[in-house]
């Protein structure tokens, strides 16, 4: 092998997975702080719609809304988290395909999966920050208090929206293959409302749907003050297993669609 090739093998120069995670997260941070308009816009829109829901609901349903406001706030918080994570992943993949940066992430010695995972984590962290602001504003508007055990809320909410990340990867992969169908895929986010409010106690099978089981646990954590170690082993198993399954499914769909896009020669052609 040549001197030049040896240069690429120089282990002292080699970046590891930690360097990769740092680079991806740092890029996300830079864009977040440098271009806050997107984040602020998202927060304003979320709060606006919550205001409509809360004040409009009180006008129509009066006390019923006030009585269930805690559940509504938790559900809305989870919905804004889910939409943020889903949109950022699926739209990001479409944008990267247009920019030609998707190909560069495919041509990485790390493999695309770790890069995509780091990007997913970065999106979740960013969405948590904006959704927390939305949560705080909702609590202030309604004068409500919730049980906010940070460990429980962060773990339960993160695992819950991980299933949405899987859907986001699948949607992004489909967008790479079929192009310009992002608006149709974005309709899926309205389905999240149904999933978040799924009757998991009455219909047990709905627990394996994305968001549904996690939503129920988050309600218990934030409304009843249940701590993570107080959940049953089955609940915790489902909390971890369901999103793991959807992340795996999303990754498989993404791999399949991008492989097919490569076979058809349309990866990156928008």
């Amino acid at each position, binding site marked *: *092998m*040549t*001197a*030049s*090739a040896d*240069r*690429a*093998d120089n*282990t*002292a*120069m*080699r*970046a*590891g*997975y*930690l*360097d*990769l*995670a*740092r*680079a991806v997260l740092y*890029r996300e941070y*830079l*864009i977040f702080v*440098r*271009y806050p308009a997107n984040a602020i816009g998202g927060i304003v829109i979320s709060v606006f719609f919550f205001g409509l829901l809360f004040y409009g609901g009180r006008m129509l349903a009066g006390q019923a809304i006030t009585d269930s406001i805690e559940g509504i706030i938790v559900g809305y918080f989870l919905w804004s988290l889910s939409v943020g994570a889903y949109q950022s992943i699926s739209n990001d993949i479409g944008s990267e395909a247009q*920019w*030609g*940066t998707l*190909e*560069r*992430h*495919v*041509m*990485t*010695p*790390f*493999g695309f999966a770790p*890069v995509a995972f780091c990007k997913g984590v970065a999106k979740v962290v960013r969405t948590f920050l904006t959704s927390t602001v939305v949560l705080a504003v909702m609590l202030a508007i309604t004068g409500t208090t919730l049980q906010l055990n940070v460990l429980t809320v962060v773990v339960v909410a993160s695992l819950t929206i991980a299933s949405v990340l899987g859907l986001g990867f699948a949607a992004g992969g489909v967008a790479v293959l079929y192009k310009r169908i992002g608006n149709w895929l974005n309709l899926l986010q309205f389905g999240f409302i149904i999933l978040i409010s799924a009757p998991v106690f009455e219909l047990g099978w709905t627990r394996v749907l994305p968001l549904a089981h996690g939503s129920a646990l988050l309600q218990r954590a934030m409304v009843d003050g249940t701590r993570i170690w107080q959940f049953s082993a089955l609940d915790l198993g489902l909390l971890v297993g369901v999103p793991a399954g959807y992340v795996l499914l999303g990754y498989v769909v993404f791999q399949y669609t991008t*492989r097919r896009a*490569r*076979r*058809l*020669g349309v*990866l*990156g052609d928008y």
Partner: protein
Amino acid sequence: MSSQRPPRQGSRTAEQSAAPRDGATPALAVEGLSKQFGSGADAVTAVDDVSFRIEQGTVVGLLGPNGAGKTTTIKSILGLVLPDSGSVRIQGIDMSEHPRAAYRHVDGMLEGARNDYWRLTVRENLRYFSTIKGVKPDAVADRHERLLAKLDLLEKADEPVRDLSRGMKQKVSLASVLASESDLVFLDEPTLGLDVESSLTLRRELRRIVDERDLTAVVSSHDMDVIEDVCDRVIIMNEGEIIADDSVPAVLDQFTANAFAVTSPDITDDLLTMIRERFEVVDVTSAERGKRVEVATDSNGFYRLLALCRDHNVTLTGVGTVEPDLEDVFVEITGQER
């Protein structure tokens, strides 16, 4: 978190097992690469049994008319298009078996794409894509600075790419590929959209960087001057096949002896018609010393042309071979304008 898992004792990594240690491993070896899009009557063969090798430190120009298969060839080599058959070895590493190991050695700047993040600064892009390619940016920070200086980007290094001119953006795209420390780079239309001066600077610096770093580069461009200035060798493709593959001077030489020109004020339209009937007339121009007729022929044909002129009492004011540029060669070989 561990950055790299050390190989087991007695085992060989993908690179070790794939690469022969004879010191003669080419930077790139493509064998029987084929790619067809569509099926049945609508099938289009984009790449048809393409094979070539590129030695380390060589700059190869990839030429061809639109639809010749250049981009599909490049993307197939890079694994961005899955070929139907054939093999690609980068530094001896089989691309389909060990893509991750191969990607440590290769990067590409793709035509018509940004290739980098416009919301990050120039320097941030270099650091990011260096990391993505498995190179610690801090370990190569000095090289990044030199690269920025060479490409005249130092002053703009801390500005977001979106605020730069189109030419500057093109340079950043190139810089972010070169920053990855890959030893084989594919540059698809690297001077696209640049003004003449920027294009000249980029060509000069690209060649200098290639030489300094012992880089291997495959440059696809519609700008023949880029190929002539930067490349050691040229591969010309047409309809998915390689139709010429030689050093730039050799390709030019092949055609030098096959084109001749005669100039005279005595060349009448009748004589010109006669010349057209007997020879392949490439060009007819009005020169200061009369009409200049350029014909594609061999040396024997050239003597017949001189005899014809003599028989018609033509006093020649100019006779000689025609030195083609790469554009002439390209048109001659492919039979197409770019």
